[in-house]
């Protein structure tokens, strides 16, 4: 993880852009935070390490001027999806790609150290992290505390970039591992799955962190969850309404979700919301042989209409 | 659809969120998108004992749709009914426009503060209104006409986009014929059959150029009109505490609790909607 190389590239790019979006150290040793670099002095605050979990592309559709941005492999898929949907002007973005072997999940680390107070955290290269707490020292391999998405990552090197801040990495994870957890879950009896989701979604407080963190949710300000014309979802806090919101949200992302995992990361109630979107993606893959955010020239299957679909069996006419 | 009222249980502790039932007794088509509704409380005792100050508002409920805030634009000196003028804009106002005479709605009133008419006594009054902005001004105008001796000269500058968009045409006719008010009407552009002034309200204000001496200016209308009117009044050297206006914000509770309509420390529903320019200048720019 070449921080010096990254800072050097940013200092070259900065004069051409209105702002450069990267990562800085957050409020404690375990958190990074997005940084909007405007002056050369700000560049010194940039960091690049396994704490950098955020998908910064969520800021792109709302930028009016030219911006620079750093992206990991998963984040770069969002940019390609934006290009497919016409949500950004590629000319107005300077992309610095960051090949990545995995980030860490804050929830998993906290659980692994039993919520002890963290005094310091050091990342050793890209493979391990040492956390010193009030009670002692803990050492983890990144793989142990990475979010699930990293364990099946197919795109460790960004798929689109203007500069690459480090040597490219090839994925060593088998492609059929991506939806393995979905298939395993589907084997469970319906009643069990129903109870599981009722329990998980019961905690939902409709804060819309998942919706706002999702880069592809660009109609946040006029969301179906809140509009009254038409009045699809009420403000009652019953499990029905929560289901309705999450189902609609997942459906609106069908064939668009790039599985960056932000929705699940930001949920303050720890609900596995990205699973629903992954399930729909698995179906989309089966029906249309389409993987979101991988080919700029493609169009999302829910955007276009074919009179005859190869994998959809219609009734015989 | 005629609805007969039903007696409702009264709780000992008054619940400020619970509307009282009122029935529509008359609907007046003021303009293509504005209607005035005259209502009376279903409870005749309540109607008899109800009182309010000019400038105060009420929240009208269409049950199942929602609530919206409207100034009570009939004066407290004429209490046969309460009148509200509703411009069709969103969900609730559209639902109100679908109602008929005899329909029931909910009312929470009176809410908010009122025009400081005490400090206006003995002074000259200048009303400047645009479009539906005449609604809150109407309350005060009629109140002053019913207490005519307490106030000096009254001048009204009122304009709308076109003649059909002028509100309260009946009142305007009456005021024109009175000798103790000066009424200056204007529309934005030429219009067939219109032989009076033409020009935007702020422009007309500059042309008329009233003197600020012992005069209170009260203005209400679209935000853009208010902006230029305030500039015009400043140029004419009106003092900040002698310029009164009403603010509008999205409101829900109407009692200064839900936190929505605040500008700085002031709640438009409770500390307003009537503010003097002097008060507005103390608030954060919003």
């Amino acid at each position: 993880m070449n921080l010096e190389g990254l800072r050097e590239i940013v200092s070259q790019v900065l004069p051409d852009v209105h702002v450069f979006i990267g990562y800085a150290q957050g409020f404690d040793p375990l958190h990074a935070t997005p940084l909007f670099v405007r002056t050369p002095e700000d560049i010194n605050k940039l960091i690049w390490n396994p704490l950098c979990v955020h998908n910064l592309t969520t800021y792109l559709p709302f930028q009016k001027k030219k911006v620079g941005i750093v992206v990991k492999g998963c984040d770069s898929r969002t940019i390609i999806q934006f290009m497919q949907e016409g949500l950004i002007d590629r000319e107005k973005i300077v992309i610095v790609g960051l090949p990545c072997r995995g980030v860490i999940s804050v929830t998993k680390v906290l659980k692994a150290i039993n919520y002890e107070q963290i005094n310091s955290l050091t990342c050793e290269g890209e493979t391990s992290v040492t956390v010193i707490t009030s009670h002692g020292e803990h050492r983890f391999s990144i793989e142990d505390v990475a979010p699930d998405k990293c364990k099946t990552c197919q795109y460790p090197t960004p798929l689109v970039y203007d500069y690459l801040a480090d040597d490219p990495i090839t994925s060593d994870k088998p492609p059929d591992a991506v939806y393995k957890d979905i298939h395993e879950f589907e084997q469970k009896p319906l009643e069990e799955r129903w109870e599981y989701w009722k329990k998980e979604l019961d905690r939902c407080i409709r804060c819309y962190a998942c919706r706002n963190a999702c880069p592809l949710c660009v109609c946040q300000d006029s969301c179906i969850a809140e509009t009254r014309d038409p009045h699809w979802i009420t403000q009652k806090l019953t499990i029905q309404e929560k289901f309705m919101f999450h189902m609609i949200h997942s459906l609106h992302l069908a064939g668009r979700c790039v599985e960056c995992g932000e929705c699940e990361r930001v949920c303050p109630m720890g609900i596995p919301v990205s699973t629903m979107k992954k399930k729909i993606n698995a179906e989309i893959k089966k029906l249309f042989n389409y993987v979101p955010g991988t080919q700029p020239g493609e169009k999302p299957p829910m955007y276009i209409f074919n009179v005859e679909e190869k994998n959809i069996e219609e009734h015989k006419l | 659809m005629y609805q007969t009222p039903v007696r409702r249980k009264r709780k000992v502790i008054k619940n400020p969120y619970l509307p009282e039932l009122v029935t529509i007794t008359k609907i007046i088509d003021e303009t293509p998108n504005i209607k005035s509704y005259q209502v009376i409380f279903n409870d005749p005792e309540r109607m008899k004992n109800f009182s309010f100050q000019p400038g105060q508002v009420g929240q009208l409920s269409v049950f199942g749709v929602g609530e919206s805030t409207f100034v009570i634009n009939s004066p407290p000196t004429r209490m046969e009914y309460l009148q509200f003028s509703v411009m069709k804009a969103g969900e609730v106002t559209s639902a109100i426009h679908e109602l008929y005479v005899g329909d029931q709605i909910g009312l929470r009133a009176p809410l908010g503060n009122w025009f400081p008419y005490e400090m206006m006594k003995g002074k000259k009054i200048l009303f400047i209104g645009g479009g539906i902005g005449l609604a809150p001004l109407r309350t005060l105008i009629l109140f002053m006409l019913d207490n005519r001796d307490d106030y000096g000269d009254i001048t009204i500058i009122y304009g709308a986009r076109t003649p059909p968009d002028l509100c309260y045409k009946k009142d305007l006719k009456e005021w024109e014929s009175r000798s103790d008010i000066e009424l200056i009407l204007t529309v934005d552009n030429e219009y067939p059959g219109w032989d009076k002034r033409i020009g935007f309200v702020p422009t007309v204000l500059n042309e008329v150029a009233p003197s600020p001496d012992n005069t209170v200016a009260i203005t209400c209308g679209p935000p853009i009109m208010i902006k230029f009117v305030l500039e015009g009044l400043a140029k004419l050297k009106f003092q900040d505490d002698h310029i009164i206006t009403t603010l509008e914000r999205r409101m829900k509770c109407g009692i200064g609790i839900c936190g929505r309509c605040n500008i700085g420390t002031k709640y438009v529903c409770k500390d307003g909607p009537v503010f003097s320019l002097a008060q507005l200048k103390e608030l954060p720019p919003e």
Partner: protein
Amino acid sequence: MAEIGFIPKDRLRDFLETVNKTIPVYVPCCEGDVVLFRRYAVDNVLCLDRPAHTPPKTIIFPQSECLFTFRFEKDPHDPKKTTIQLAEPEEPSEAIIFAARPCDAKGFTIYDRVYIDTDMPDPYYKKRREKTTIVTMVCPSPSPGCFCTAVGGSPANREGADVMMTELENGYVLESLTEKGKALLLYQYVEDGQAFREAAEAKQLEVKNLVHAPFQKEGVYNISKTIFNSDEFWETEIDKCISCGACTYLCPTCYCFNITDEHAITRGERLRNWDACMFFHFTLEASGHNPRPTKYQRFKNRVGHKFLYYPEKYDGVIACCGCGRCIRHCPVSVDIREIVAHLQSSTSDVSNTSEKEKKGD
């Protein structure tokens, strides 16, 4: 019983179970990795060593509450006639919030000034508030992001508490502060706690020094209005915010709400739900005009409300309890302490007072 009680650790669940049979008790429980307040049940996993993700405010101020129901009924003898019936909901029942934190309890006192001490009090909140007993637990240690001492609080603060609970090695000391609190100490399994009074007081003193204050409370009253009203300040300070409602919904002192009618043809209800000033629609008017269309203006209003407007109206009380939930759970780690610290400086170039904590000191 004396005004100080003591529950041995191995009796805690028995105590909670007994009380719960008479009055619902809400306790912090683990569900997966999340801690939240749930009604006590035998299979709850109690979690007292870290603050709950969500504050207990939903017990006194439910996230969704029915204000009244309405019904349209046709007169069977004259189909043209329809009556409207309004009905208020049932009276709320008593409740006990067990092991809230001092910051959570302080949150309720912030509500009280707005909802109760006014000429038109909110009857729904008032009734629940009067019927709920709050047992505040002294924080054993701060969590990342905690800053209660910077806003007039502390890990042993008594504001809003009916009972003060201190954890010692072998049990919990309960000090009753109000009549409601005294009633709680009369339950079975609460022993006499006089012998533990000193130890509890010592513990309360000890924890007060553990919380790092990134700015001084007095500094809040010296916030520069010039900087506060500067658009440029907010446009660079709050770029990363994504305008969700997580900070608002997890905040013990946030009290904004929305009122909507939910309707099913012949009947419906008027609901009161939490709302967040961070949402675009919060101030959106029917005409389409929005006085706060950008996230910068909305965040400025949020900070302004907590640190300027509320203190101005209510004798300098800051409408923030320093619990740190907004910092811990913000998707992009917006740090309100940093923003308030920046506002207090007279120049825009400020040394970062939370630098220490970032490095983990």
